[in-house]
């Protein structure tokens, strides 16, 4: 992906990622953690939140730092880094509330042209996992990094 993003720091087990969002609200510490949640197929949960001065992480606050696409691009970058280390497994993403999940859906939709180059994404809606579509609301998402570009050529 060729999108602007923040630099980040990784713990040496490649499961925790930290970066700072900078904007009108100041510098906000963002933390991403990947946790294994299943083996068939191997699936990791991607959780993402703000860490306050007391070291408490949550995503209950809308930080509104005018950098949502840069933040989303940074999160996508961590998926690439995580997959470099652990392999191209399924990654589960869900917001803490339906409205937060909807924000993720809108963010993915805005960046779909770039995001879809690197990742397969499915959304859960109406009782099943479906290929991601930009105009649909989902309850949760599954992401898997692409290994190959598939294209047609004239023989």
């Amino acid at each position, binding site marked *: 992906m060729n999108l602007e993003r923040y630099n980040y*720091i990784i*713990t040496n087990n490649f499961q925790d990622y930290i970066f700072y969002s900078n904007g009108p609200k100041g510098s906000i510490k963002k933390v991403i*953690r990947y*946790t294994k*949640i299943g083996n068939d197929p191997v699936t990791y*949960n991607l959780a993402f939140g703000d860490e306050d001065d007391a070291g408490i992480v949550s995503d209950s606050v809308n930080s509104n730092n005018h950098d949502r696409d840069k933040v989303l691009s940074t999160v996508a970058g961590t998926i690439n880094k995580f997959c470099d280390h652990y392999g191209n497994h399924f990654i*589960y993403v869900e917001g803490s509330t339906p409205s937060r999940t909807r924000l993720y859906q809108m963010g993915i939709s805005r960046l779909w042209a770039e995001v879809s180059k690197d990742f397969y994404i499915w959304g859960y809606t109406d009782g099943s996992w479906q290929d991601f579509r930009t105009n649909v609301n989902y309850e*949760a998402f599954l992401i898997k990094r*692409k290994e190959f570009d598939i*294209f047609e050529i004239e023989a």
Partner: protein
Amino acid sequence: MSVVKKAPVKRKEQDDIIVSDQVRSYAGEPYFVKKAEDAKEFMRKHPLPDHLKK
């Protein structure tokens, strides 16, 4: 006639990343523990269909 080809995805190397043992692990952070438990429960109730597991 067209032929379907596949080639490894080319990715730009991310060279502005720091790996550090000075950063704390968030493994026990309650927010992340709950998120993982919720995710596990969701996947238990709504597993992937077999054709997506391949």
